[in-house]
C-alpha cells in the first residue's frame, strides 16, 4: 500500500475520488468510494456483476451525475463539469459494449476522435480528411491497434474483435493522460484476449490506466493495484497478490459473500 501514491511523480494524483456516491432513488449503485490513482499507475477495478464498476466509470467521465462526493482529475474538481470539457483535460474511455460509428470508415472513426480535442473541430469550410496532420496522427493510432489493413472499411463491417480494437484506437487517438477501459476484452476469444492484453501492456508508461475487468487473471496480470467493489461499496484494495489472498474478495467471487 505504501508504494502506491504520488511519490514517483512527485505531484498530485491523476485521479482522486472522495466519498463518491450514485443513488437511483433508493438504490445505491455506488456508495462512498474513495481512492487515488497516481500518475502512470495501472489500476484495476474488479467486482461481480452489479458491483457499480461501470457506474463509477460514468461518473468519472461525467456521463452520469454524481449524487454525493467529489471527483478530481489532475487536481481539478470535475464533479459538475460537462463531459466534453473533461475529455479536453485528457480523459478518454472505452465501453464494455462497443460504441463506434458504424457507417463511418475506420479512419474516419479515429479522425473524429483526434479532431475532438483540436480547436478546428467545428470548422466548416475545409475538408476534414484533407487535414494532413490530423489524418497522419489518426493513421498512427489506427496502426497502434493493428487495423492499418482496414482503414477504409466501414466500422459496421468489422468483426467483433476488430471493433474492440477500433474502440481502443478511438480512445488512444486522443493521447489521454487517463484512460478508462471498461472490459476491453469483453466478448473476445482466448486468442483475441491475448492480443488485447499485449495492446494494453504496451501502452506508454506515462498513460495512467483505470480498468474494469471481469477476468481476474487478465485484471491481475495487467494492474499494479486493485480496488474491489461489491454492491456499490469498496471492500478491498491492494496489489494483485494481496487481493488474491484477501478473504473477503474470495468470498465474493466464490459466492460466499452477502
Amino acid at each position, binding site marked *: 500500500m505504501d508504494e502506491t501514491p504520488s511519490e514517483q511523480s512527485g505531484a498530485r494524483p491523476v485521479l482522486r475520488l472522495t466519498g463518491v456516491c450514485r443513488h437511483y432513488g433508493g438504490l445505491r449503485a455506488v456508495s462512498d468510494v474513495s481512492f487515488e490513482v497516481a500518475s502512470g499507475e495501472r489500476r484495476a477495478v474488479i467486482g461481480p456483476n452489479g458491483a457499480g464498476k461501470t457506474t463509477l466509470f460514468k461518473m468519472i467521465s461525467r456521463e452520469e451525475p454524481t449524487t454525493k462526493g467529489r471527483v478530481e482529475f489532475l487536481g481539478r474538481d470535475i464533479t459538475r463539469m460537462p463531459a466534453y470539457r473533461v475529455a479536453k483535460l485528457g480523459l478518454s474511455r472505452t465501453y464494455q459494449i462497443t460504441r463506434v*460509428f458504424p457507417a463511418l470508415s475506420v479512419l474516419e472513426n479515429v479522425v473524429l476522435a483526434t479532431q475532438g480535442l483540436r480547436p478546428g473541430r467545428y470548422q466548416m469550410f475545409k475538408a476534414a480528411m484533407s487535414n494532413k496532420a490530423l489524418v497522419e496522427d489518426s493513421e498512427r493510432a489506427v496502426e497502434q491497434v493493428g487495423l492499418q489493413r482496414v482503414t477504409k472499411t466501414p466500422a459496421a463491417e468489422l468483426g467483433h*474483435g476488430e471493433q474492440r480494437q477500433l474502440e481502443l484506437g478511438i480512445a488512444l487517438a486522443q493521447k489521454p493522460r487517463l484512460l478508462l477501459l471498461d472490459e476491453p476484452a469483453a466478448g473476445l476469444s482466448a*486468442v483475441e484476449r491475448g492480443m488485447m492484453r499485449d495492446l494494453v501492456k504496451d501502452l506508454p508508461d506515462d498513460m495512467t490506466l483505470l480498468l474494469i475487468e471481469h477476468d481476474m487473471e487478465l485484471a491481475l496480470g495487467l494492474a499494479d493495484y486493485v480496488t474491489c467493489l461489491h454492491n456499490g461499496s469498496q471492500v478491498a484494495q491492494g496489489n494483485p497478490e494481496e487481493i488474491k489472498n484477501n478473504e473477503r474478495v474470495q468470498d465474493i467471487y466464490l459466492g460466499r459473500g452477502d
Partner: protein
Amino acid sequence: MNTLRLVKWASLAAVVGLTVALPYLVSSFYVNMATQMLFFGLFALSINLIAGYGGMVTLGQAGVLGIAGYGLGIFYTSYAVPLGVSALLAIISTILVAAFFGLLLVRASGVYFLMITLAQGMVVWGVAQRLTTLTGGDNGLRGIARPPFAVEYWSYYYFSLAVVAFCVFLIARIVRSPFGLSLKGVREAETRMAPLGYDVKRIKLFAFTISGTFAGVAGLLLAMYNNFFSPPSVYVKASAEGLLMSILGGVGTITGAFVGSGVFVFVTNYVSGYMERWPTLLGLIFVLTILFTPDGVVGAWQRLVWAPLLRRYGAADEAELIEVGVGGGGLLSDRDLKGSKSAIEAGSAAPSEEPSEQVEETRAGS
C-alpha cells in the same frame, strides 16, 4: 479507374450543360418546372442536412422557410423596404428564429426532436393564419416582386440556378468539413460524442440554424417565384413533402434532394394535368421507394450501378463504403442489421493470423 473517372466527369458535364442550356431547349412551362425543382430541392437539401447527415428528423422545416417568405413579403409589401434589403432582413429573421427554435431542440433527439419541430412548424402556421394584420391570413401576401434583372421566366430560372448552385457548393463543403464529420458522428453514436470532446448541443444548434438558413433561401425563391406567399407554404404538409423529397432521392446525399424534388415537381405539375388521382401516384412512388430502396433513388443507383462498376475497376474499398451506406442510411437503412450480421459471420470465421502470432510470442515469453 481512370475510365470511371472519365465517365463520372463526362456525365457531370452533360448535366451541367443541360442545366445551363435548358431555357434554349424547352418551353417556359418546363423551365418553370425546373425552377421549382431547384428551390424545392434546396428546401429538401436543408432538411437532408439535419435529417440525413445529422440523424435529426424534422417535420417543421416549412415553418422556418415561412419566416423568410413572410419576412420578405412583410418588409417589401407592407413597409415598402427595397427588395434586396427586404431579402436580407428576411434571412436575418430566419437565422434568428431558427437559432431560437434550435435552442429548444438541443436536448432532444429521435421522436422527441420530431415532435418539437412539428409543434414549432404549427406555431408558425398558426401565426400566419391568425395574425392577419401582418400576414394577410388566408389571403396571404400579394405583390412580392422578383429582382428587376430576373423578372422573365428564363432570367428567374438562371437567378435561381445561381443562388441554388452557390448554396449547394456551401453545403457540399460543410458536409465534408470537420463540422460535417462531427454531425455524422452525432447521427451514428450521439452518446459517444461528448466523451470525445464534442459539445453535442452546440453541434445540434449550429446544424439546425445552418439548415434553417438554407430553408430560408429556398423560401425567398419560392415567394418571389409566385409573387405571393400564403399559409399552405408553411403548413405541416409542406414540411412533410420536403422530408419525403429528401427520402425519395436518398437521405444523406446532395443529389438525392434534387432527384426527389424533381419527381415531386414533375408529378404535381405535369402528371396532374393528365391524371386526377395524382396524389395517389405520388403516394405509391413513396411507398415503393421505402419498400424497395430505403436509401432512395440515388442510393439504389449507387448500390446497383456505381458500386459494381467500382468493384470491377478495382476500387473495392469505395464500393464497400457505398454498400454500407456512407452518406446513405442513417435514417431508414438496415445498416445496423447488416453490421451485426457481418460481425457474426466474422466471429464464426477462423481468427486471422496476426493475433495468433502475437499469442505465440507471449506464450514463448512467459
